[in-house]
C-alpha cells in the first residue's frame, strides 16, 4: 500500500502512526540541529501520546522543551525562535487546546512572509492530535481544520497511515513555511505498517490513491480514510468499484487528483469528522462542481460530523462518520 521511494534494499520497520511521528521527529532532529521541540509534557513524559518519547534523553533540554502551560506562549515564542534561526516543532496537546494560540497563528504565523514582503519567514510546524472516537473527555475530540484552511499562509497536512505520517512530517519540518500537522489520534496505534527506516519525505500536494475504482470516488483524509476504505469494501461486495482518495495535505491540495477522479467516476462522496457546515467538504464539493459539473452524475455527497458540539463519550459513536454512513451516501449518489 505504501508507495515508498524505490531505494535498493530498503530497511523497514513496522510502526504505528504515533511511532512514525516519533521516528520523523528523531531523524529530523539528527539531521538538523536547528530543529527543536516545544510543548506541554513533551519532555520526561514524552508527550501524552508518547510521540516525543526518548527525545529529551537523546537531545537534551535545550532541544526538547517542556513549556509553561500556555499555548499562545508556545506558538508565540516559537515565532521568535524561528525568526532567530531555529525550526520549532510545536506540540499542541489536543486540537481543542489550540484556540488560545489562534491569535498567534492567524495574526502572525500565517502572515510573516507576506507582511515582510518575503524578507522574513517562519519554518515551523504545529503538531496536534485531532478527532474523536477514543472516548476522551470534553474538548479532546475536535477537528478544526477549517480555520486553518481559510487562513492563507498556512499549510495543512493530515496523514492517514504510518508511512505518510513519517514522510509528511519530515517534509513539514523541512518546509520553509509554517505547517499545521494534524494527527489522527483515533488511529495513532490502530495498526502498524512497514515504514522505511531511513528518512524520507512525502511531497505536499500529492494525494494518494488508496484504492483504485471506477464507479465512485470517496475522498477522505486522516482517520476517515480507513472509514472510506471500509465503505469501499462493503460497496465492492455489491459490485460497486469505489476509488478512495487520501488527500494527505489539504493545503496545498492536489486539485488534479480530486478533479481527475471526480471526472473519471462522476460520483463523489467526501468524508470528514469536522462539522458539516463550512467544513472542508464544502470546499471540495464546490471545487469539483466548478471543474467537473458536466461530468457529475450525481450531487457530490458530504458525510461529515453533525453541526453540533462534539458530544461526550456516551454518544460520540453516533457522531462519528461510519462506513455505513458512507455506504448510504454512496448509494444515494449511485441511485441519483
Amino acid at each position: 500500500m505504501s508507495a515508498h521511494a524505490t531505494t535498493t534494499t530498503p530497511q523497514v520497520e513496522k510502526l504505528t502512526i504515533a511511532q512514525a511521528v516519533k521516528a520523523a521527529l528523531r531523524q529530523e532532529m539528527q539531521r538538523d540541529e536547528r530543529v527543536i521541540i516545544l510543548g506541554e509534557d513533551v519532555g520526561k513524559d514524552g508527550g501524552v501520546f508518547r510521540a516525543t518519547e526518548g527525545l529529551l534523553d537523546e537531545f537534551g533540554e535545550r532541544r526538547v522543551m517542556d513549556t509553561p502551560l500556555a499555548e499562545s506562549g508556545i506558538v508565540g515564542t516559537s515565532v521568535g525562535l524561528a525568526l532567530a534561526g531555529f525550526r520549532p516543532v510545536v506540540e499542541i496537546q489536543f486540537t481543542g487546546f489550540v484556540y488560545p494560540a489562534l491569535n498567534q497563528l492567524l495574526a502572525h504565523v500565517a502572515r510573516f512572509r507576506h507582511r515582510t514582503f518575503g524578507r522574513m519567514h517562519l519554518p515551523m510546524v504545529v503538531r496536534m492530535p485531532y478527532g474523536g472516537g477514543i472516548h476522551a473527555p470534553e474538548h479532546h475530540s475536535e477537528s478544526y481544520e477549517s480555520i486553518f484552511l481559510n487562513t492563507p499562509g498556512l499549510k495543512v497536512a493530515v496523514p492517514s497511515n504510518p508511512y505518510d505520517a513519517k514522510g509528511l512530517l519530515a517534509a513539514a519540518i523541512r518546509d520553509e513555511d509554517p505547517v499545521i500537522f494534524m494527527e489522527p489520534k483515533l488511529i495513532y496505534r490502530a495498526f502498524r505498517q512497514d515504514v522505511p527506516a531511513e528518512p524520507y519525505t512525502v511531497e505536499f500536494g500529492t494525494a494518494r490513491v488508496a484504492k483504485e475504482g471506477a464507479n465512485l470516488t470517496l475522498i477522505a483524509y486522516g482517520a476517515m480514510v480507513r472509514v472510506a476504505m471500509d465503505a469501499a469494501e462493503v460497496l465492492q461486495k455489491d459490485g460497486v468499484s469505489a476509488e478512495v482518495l487520501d488527500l494527505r495535505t489539504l493545503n496545498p491540495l492536489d486539485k488534479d487528483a480530486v478533479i481527475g477522479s471526480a471526472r473519471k467516476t462522476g460520483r463523489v462522496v467526501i468524508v470528514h469528522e469536522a462539522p458539516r457546515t463550512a467544513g472542508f467538504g464544502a470546499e471540495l464539493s464546490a471545487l469539483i462542481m466548478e471543474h467537473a459539473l458536466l461530468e457529475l452524475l450525481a450531487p457530490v455527497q458530504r458525510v461529515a460530523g453533525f453541526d453540533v458540539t462534539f458530544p461526550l463519550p456516551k454518544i460520540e459513536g453516533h457522531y462519528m462518520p461510519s462506513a455505513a454512513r458512507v455506504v448510504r451516501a454512496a448509494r444515494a449518489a449511485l441511485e441519483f
Partner: protein
Amino acid sequence: MPRTTIYEAQTIRLQILMPDGSVDRSLMPTVDDGQILALYRGMATMRAVDEKALKLQRQGRMGTWAPLRGQEAAQAGVAHALEPEDWIVPAFREMGVLIMRGVPIHHIMTYWVGDSRGAVHPDFPRILPTAVPVGSQLLHGAGIGMAMELRDEPHAAVAFAGDGASSEGDFHEALNFAAVFKARTVFVIQNNQWAISVPFSKQTVVSSIAQKAHAYGLPGIQVDGNDVFAVYVAVKEALEQARAGRGPSLIEAFTYRMGDHTTADDASRYRTKEEVESWEAKSPIARLRLFMTAQGLWDQAQEENLRTEVEGLIEEEVRLMESRAPLEPGSMFQHMYADLPWNLKEQMESLQAEVAS
C-alpha cells in the same frame, strides 16, 4: 527623589493545623465540633469517591477520572466557607467541592462516565460545569463576580484553577478584570505542584502563585493547602470581603496531587516515589484525624462507622448512576440552540433513522 521606592508589599503564608495534628490556637477559626466533623466527613467521602472512581475506571465502568487525592483539605476548606447563594466555577478536579456542597455523587459521576446530563445539576444553578480548557474558566468567575458587584448582590463567586493554569493568559486577564471591576470573586489556585508532568518549578520561576497578586492590586495569600483550617479561614475572609464589595482576592492552596494526573496518565514516568511519600506524611486527612482524636472528638469506632456508612452511600450512588436510562443520541442536537434550525433537524432525523434501522 531620583531613586524612589514606589511599591512595597509582602506575601504571607498561613498555616494553622500542623501535620502532627497540633494547631496554632491564635489563628484557629471559631469552628464548633459539628463543623469539624462535617469537614472530616466531607474529606473522607471525597477520598472514598476518588478510590471508587479509580476502581470503576479499571473495570471499564468509568471514563477518564482526574483523582483529587491529596487535595481534600483544599477543597473542603473552600466548600465549607461557601454560602448557598455563592457561585462555584470549577476547573476539572473539584469533585470534592461539589460533593461537600451536596451535589449527588451519582450525578457527578454521570458526567465522568461521559454523559452530559451530569454536567450541571438543576438544584445547583450556581455551580458551573467542569471546565476542561485550562484557565479559561477564571474569566467566567471574574464575570460572575462583576455581575454580583454590578447588582450589589451580597454573594461571591469562587473560581478554581491549578498551578499550571496560572501560566495561561486568561489567568492574567481574569485577575486584572476582577481587580479593575471590583468583582466579588475569590480565585482559589490549588497549587498541587504538577501540571501533568510539568513541575511547578517549570511553570514559573517565582516560588508562590500568591505573589502574582502584586501584579493586579488584589490581596494574595498562600495557605497550606493540606491544612483545612487555614484554607477555610483564608477563603472565608476573602469571601466576606468579596460579598461586601471590597474586592477580589487570590488564594493559593499549596498542596500536592497524590495520584496520577488522570487515569490516562502514569505519574511514575516523571516523578519519584520519595517525593510522593514525603507528601503522604503531610496528609490533609490524617492530620485532621490526629487533631480530632487529640480533642477527644474522634475514635477508632467512629472512624469505622464512617467508613462503612460512606462506602454504603457510594455503592448506592454508583447504582443510581448506572441504572439511569441511557442517553438519547438525538440529545446532541437538542441543546445547540433554543430552537432547532433546519440543518440540525435534518441531521437529527437522519441519525434517528439510522438508529432505528
